[in-house]
């Protein structure tokens, strides 16, 4: 780059923010109907691409910020090796249902390239709101390895990634998670909470736990060839919670029992696939099959002479913005997530699919 390198002075951005609010304040009517400058944390979003990527990030912000108003810092990494860094400030406002007053959050856009990212930490450090949590969202975890972004992630109390974004590359990214920040979360893990909640609720009734005594196999129905990360998380969580460890292939063991557990490829004729990532989960016992699926609306039981099939409904997948909103509220470690991460990675690296596709 021959032209003078553009630089951003964080102080100037902060001054611009103050001016912005002063102007907004002048245009407000009264204290009751005016604006509320809301902020409960610093929210950093890192995206790669062009202006369209920023538009996409802004749309997400509009949803996420309603639950957790924040100072949003959007980092755009453009293609190219120019080392400039541009900054601008703006605000997003909305009027909560039934309220006269608008709630507003402030947004700082930092526009740079991968090469220019090395200037980010100093700017972000100055822009972080004092004494409040900082959360970084970087759907593409690879970006967290870029010099500058990596250091900036260290300023965050929590880093949220999305393994589902990476497809097969998860294998490379998962092992690097500890480098991304002190607390790392994965939206792919968050996506299975509907299934986890439904299972926990169902097995909270002692009589329902009878099935677990003579459990023969567990199958997570997912897309063929390679399971979705969500499916890997779910299977690892189920087996880990039941105390099983993977022995070989489909075989999982614990002191007094063995089960077969793995994935089953979703078939094309599968009815109403609510989500190809996890279509359904079967717990198969000696005479009972328990099926968890989003497709069913109510708990139903089908009895035959030799077996019964119980279908337990699972809440529909929540939008990413809802999952992200919750990530912004949780400050403690996700110990369950961390506990099952290792088994998840192994399941993803060496997925085993059931050859037979019938439960019995």
């Amino acid at each position, binding site marked *: 780059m021959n032209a003078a390198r553009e630089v951003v002075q964080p102080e100037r951005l902060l001054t611009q923010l103050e001016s912005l609010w002063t102007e907004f304040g002048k245009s407000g009517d009264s204290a009751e109907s005016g604006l509320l400058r809301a902020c*409960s944390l610093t929210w950093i979003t890192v995206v790669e691409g062009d202006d369209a990527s920023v538009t996409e990030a802004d749309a997400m912000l509009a949803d996420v910020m309603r639950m957790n108003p924040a100072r949003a810092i959007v980092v755009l990494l453009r293609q190219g090796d120019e080392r400039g860094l541009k900054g601008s400030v703006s605000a997003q406002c909305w009027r909560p249902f039934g309220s006269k007053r608008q709630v507003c959050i402030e947004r700082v856009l930092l526009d740079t390239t991968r090469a220019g990212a090395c200037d980010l930490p100093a700017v972000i450090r100055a822009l972080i709101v004092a004494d409040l949590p900082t959360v970084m969202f970087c759907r593409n975890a690879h970006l967290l390895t870029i010099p500058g972004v990596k250091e900036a992630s260290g300023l965050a109390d929590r880093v949220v990634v999305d393994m589902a974004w990476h497809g097969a590359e998860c294998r490379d990214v998962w092992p690097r998670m500890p480098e991304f920040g002190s607390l790392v979360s994965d939206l792919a893990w968050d996506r299975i909470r509907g299934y986890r909640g439904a299972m926990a609720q169902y*097995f909270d009734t002692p009589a329902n736990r009878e099935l677990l*005594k003579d459990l023969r196999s567990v199958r997570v129905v997912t897309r063929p060839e390679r399971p979705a990360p969500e499916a890997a998380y779910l299977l690892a969580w189920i087996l880990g919670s039941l105390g099983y460890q993977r022995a070989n292939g489909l075989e999982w063991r614990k002191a007094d029992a063995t089960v077969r557990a793995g994935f089953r490829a979703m078939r094309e004729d599968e009815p109403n696939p609510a989500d190809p990532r996890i279509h359904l989960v079967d717990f198969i016992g000696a005479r009972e099959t328990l099926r968890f699926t989003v497709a069913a609306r109510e708990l139903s039981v089908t009895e035959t002479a030799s077996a019964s099939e119980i279908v337990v409904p699972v809440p529909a997948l929540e939008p990413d913005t809802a999952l992200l909103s919750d990530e912004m509220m949780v400050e403690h470690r996700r110990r369950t997530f961390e506990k099952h991460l290792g088994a998840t990675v192994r399941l993803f690296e060496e997925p085993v699919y059931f050859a037979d596709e019938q439960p019995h």
Partner: protein
Amino acid sequence: MVDVNPFEDALQGSRKIPPSVLVIFGASGDLTKRKLVPALYRLFHDGRLPNSFFVIGNSRTEFTDDTFREKQREELGEFLKDLEIDEEEWGRFAKRLHYIPGNMKDPALYNAIGARIDELTGGVPHEVCFYLSTQPSFYPVAVDMLRETGLNKGNAQRRVVVEKPIGHDLDSARELERHLEAAFDESDIYRIDHYLGKETVQNILAFRFANGIFEPLWNRRYVDHIQITAAESIGVEGRGAYYQETGALRDMVQNHMLQVMATVMMEPYTRFGAGPVRDERAKLLRSIRIFKPEEVPQHAVCGQYGPARVGGEDLPGFRQEDGVTPDSQTRTYAAVNLFVDNWRWSGVPVYIRTGKRLPKRVTDVAIQFRAAPKNMFATIAGDRDVAPNLMILRIQPDEGISLRFQSKRPGSGMQLRPVGMDFNYGTSFGTRTPEAYETLLLDALGGDPTLFIRKDMVEASWQVIMPILDSWQDNKFDFPNYDAGTWGPKESDAMLARHGHQWRRP
């Protein structure tokens, strides 16, 4: 059988509601349409209700399951806040609503309810909550019949939820308690005071006990006095006949305001749980000084609003409201000056006021701190008192907490001006706060009585109120004594002035 739920970690952070049936007596009434069904639909929408959950409504009105569902759907549109009704979701929710018409005095009704519970649950153990949302005079009948027909016991926990008022005086409250106790264990009786379900009231506990900096100031050494205000700008809104029998003291002070006062002033509990929290609330209520009859006029003021023109609108006086007799002695305003006779609060006046047709709708608690030991700015301020430090806990609307303190005005010289440091829920939490009934229904279904009133708390509250009620009952007041749209009778201001205090203007 596997002893523990191996997947329990997924339930952490959210209350576990077991398979349940909620039986609502008085299901065609106001509370059901305004609060209960909207709260249940919201909980269903949020996925907080168990898969196996049923509601059985009852009243004397002849609905079928279908017509009851249609009525609820129609009314939900009017009373559900901040959520659009999804018809597909409503369809799934509505399937859980059932209805049995019948007279609450008729044993056949209870047999029919029992049969419907068995039919819906298929004999699988379900907890059952009986929600008394009827006229209070039916409470004893309902619990007696539940006991006599055996519905108070079952293959899983059975509870009863009772709305206020718990009696109209101490004797009637004790009488009701006798009926309740005959049918249910105290641990299965859930007496609702919806103020305790409000997020802002619950937050008082977090504010006091999760922070180290406020509690050291929370005592007679630093607090000058406390004011608790629950003002309504509306009148009786067509409920004149009901309100005439109740009045402000019974309607607000005996329950909501004393509970808020107990929350603000109770001692720290040893751990957060139903037992310790309610123990401390009850202890505080028992520590409130009970006035002798001759002390009441010094410590309590009542009022009734008269007609006035407010904002260009002619507002009727209470006696002009529908269903109210022209010489009614009902108190639409009550202010009391209480004292808590314990080590922490000895000598600190607590002023409570509530009323209808006051200038605005507001509920808050103001803790006024003592002045600095020496006013070093007296000469500059022209011997004027420096405005005291105030901590305001805003319960509704504009929920939040603010602290008022002195600051130097910019410019030359040392001019002081009070300024505010403000926490507003909207600033830090963009998310909606759940309605009190969502919280309380979930707690009742999940068996957590922390936010519910215990028998000893009901009794202690009535003991505080009875001398005032008796004294007022024995007197004839020259009503109306305040204009609609004002902050109440002048006697109320005089009551505080005797202690050198004055009411805030919220």
